Every structure is written in structure tokens, then in C-alpha cells.
């Protein structure tokens, strides 16, 4: 199925195409399986919303009003911790795939003179994007929003600046610090809290909102930087 990866005319192509008969038969098989699953699930009635009632009942003592942020950062905070750590490691994996000791390092992203209209538009647009990102981060506790959305929007702002050709120059230690900042803050809060409450990730009664905001700020920082580094490295490759 994936056996033969090769490159011709700059497109990485799979050349192990089976004959049409096999492909058609497998397509029919998949369609049948899809129909069966839809039929089976249409018949069986959905479950009682156990978790929904539990989550909404406990909502008031999680220090956050938005139920999704409550589930994300209080009830199932362990999942979110692992997933932010995952993003941090994937950035490292990209560095390790990109950097080859026996090769000359890669040419930097091309920077070129952007059009004057674009430049002036960006001068007004980028602060607005960062403002929107900050707002989304802040309202994450009350209305839909949160670390991931804010990080993505601010990262898209930086990417727009980079696509247009304006160079973004920042000292390299920001890279090493901020990539791991989100994970480090989350782990630090998880461990520190354990000393007061006995079990890991249990926020003390009053300070749940403050701790969640702290984690969200650090997570937004590292998500923004991670997504921007994804773009920068793919652009340099």
C-alpha cells in the first residue's frame, strides 16, 4: 500500500498503483463497511449524557465558566498537558529531521521588498490580530475561545508578515525558551499544586481561575511559536 515512495518531476509520488480491479473492489468494500456502520449506529440509540451532566454540575467549582475550557484544563487537564508536550516534541522532531550534519545548512527564507500598500496595511493589521488573539485568550474562561485558538490566530499573523516578505528577527534564545515554556509551566503547576493538595493537577480551591489563566498564557506562547516554526522550517526546506 505505501511501499514504493519515489520522486519524479519534483512530486513525491507513490508508484505502487495496483490494478483498477483491486482498487474498485476495495472501494466497494469500504462503501459497504461505511453503509453498515451508518446503519448499525442509526439503529442503536445514543447513550445517556452521563459525562455532560457530571461536567455541568461540577462547573461552578472549576473556577471557569466556559464548560469546554473547564473540561480541557480542569477535568481532563492531564490530556491537555500531554498534548501540549506533544506539540513541543514535534517541533523538536522537525528540527532533527531538518538538520543534517553532513549537509550545508539551508538557505534562509527569501525576504524581499513588499508592496507599499501591503506594508501599510500590515502596520494596522498585525496589532489588530495580536489584540484578537489576546482577547480570545482572555475570554477563554467565559465564552468560546482559549489557548489553542489564540495561539493559532497570532501565529497566522506572524505567518502573514513572513509571507509578504518582511523578515521577523528575534534572538534565538526565545526559540529554545518559548517552545518548551507551555509544557514546562503546565508541569510546574501540576507538581507544585501536588504539594498542597496531595494529588497532581488538583487546583487549590480559590486559585483555579488564576492557575488556568497562567497555563493558558504559557500555552498560547508556545503554540504560537510552534506553529510559526512549522511554517518557517517548511519554507526554508
Amino acid at each position, binding site marked *: 500500500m505505501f511501499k514504493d515512495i519515489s520522486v519524479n518531476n519534483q512530486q513525491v509520488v507513490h508508484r*505502487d498503483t495496483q490494478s483498477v480491479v483491486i482498487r474498485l473492489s476495495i*472501494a466497494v468494500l*469500504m462503501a459497504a463497511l*461505511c453503509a453498515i456502520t451508518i446503519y448499525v449506529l442509526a439503529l442503536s440509540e445514543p447513550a445517556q449524557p452521563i459525562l455532560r451532566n457530571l461536567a455541568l454540575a461540577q462547573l461552578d467549582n472549576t473556577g471557569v465558566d466556559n464548560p469546554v475550557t473547564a473540561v480541557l484544563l480542569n477535568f481532563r487537564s492531564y490530556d491537555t498537558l500531554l498534548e501540549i508536550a506533544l506539540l513541543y516534541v514535534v517541533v523538536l522532531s*522537525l528540527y532533527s529531521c531538518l538538520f543534517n550534519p553532513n549537509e550545508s545548512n539551508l538557505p534562509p527564507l527569501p525576504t524581499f521588498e513588499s508592496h507599499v500598500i501591503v506594508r501599510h496595511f500590515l502596520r494596522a493589521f498585525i496589532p489588530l490580530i495580536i489584540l484578537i488573539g489576546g482577547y480570545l485568550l482572555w475570554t477563554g474562561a467565559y465564552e468560546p475561545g482559549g489557548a489553542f485558538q489564540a495561539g493559532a490566530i497570532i501565529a497566522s499573523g506572524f505567518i502573514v508578515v513572513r509571507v509578504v516578505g518582511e523578515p521577523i528577527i528575534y534572538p534565538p534564545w526565545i526559540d529554545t525558551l518559548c517552545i518548551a515554556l507551555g509544557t514546562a509551566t503546565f508541569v510546574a503547576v501540576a507538581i507544585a499544586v501536588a504539594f498542597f493538595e496531595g494529588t497532581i493537577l488538583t487546583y487549590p480551591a480559590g486559585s483555579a481561575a488564576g492557575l488556568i489563566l497562567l497555563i493558558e498564557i504559557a500555552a498560547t506562547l508556545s503554540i504560537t511559536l510552534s506553529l510559526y516554526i512549522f511554517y518557517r522550517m517548511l519554507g526554508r526546506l
Partner: protein
Amino acid sequence: MNDILMYSATGFVLFFLGLYFVAFAPLVITRILAINIMGVGIFMFLVAHANSHNGVTDPVPHALILTGIVVAVAGTALALVLVKKIQVLSHNQNVTINSSSDTDQHTIQHTEQSPNQRTKDNLHD
């Protein structure tokens, strides 16, 4: 009630559509798209049942899907870097290598000749 069924059916259709193209799409980057579409299919199935109860939506699937979306982006970025690195390395070696020693060497004649997009694609230059 039937909008739940419709969206979960769309979710399954997207899942199996993506699965077919992950297996048989000629271009590797199309396979990456197919994996993203499979993920969206699963999330649609999950969300379709989340708001089924008289308007009070169930927050737990939403949190799961946020995690799933970020994992999907991470997977896509890693796949893209690997694909481009293969492109660059094989270009530098200037040899069209068809790899994995134990495949039989039947090469298909009518490789879809995707035209050179460089002329049209002025986004980046």
C-alpha cells in the same frame, strides 16, 4: 433528530473517503490531505451527538476534538517535512530512485503529468 443522523453519516462517509485515498492516492501530499479529512470525519461524528440533547451541548467531545485538531496539525507538519526532505535529498542526488529493494520494478507508463505549477503559483515568490 435527523440532523444528528445526517452529520454522523457525513462523518463516516468522510472517514472512509479519506481511508480510500490514503491507500490509493498517487501523490503523497494528497495522502496527507486524506488523513486530515479522515480526522475531520471522526470529529463530525463525535460532535453530531454532542448537541443532541435539547440544546445543552456536551462539552467533553469538544475538548477531545480540540486535542485531536492540534495532534492532526502536528502530524501533518511532520509528514510535510519528511516529504519535502525526501524531495530535496533526491533532487540533490539527481537520480529518480524507486526505493524499497523487494518491490517488483513494474513502472506505470501513464504517470499523471501534473503540470508545472511554478508559473501559476506566485503566492510565495
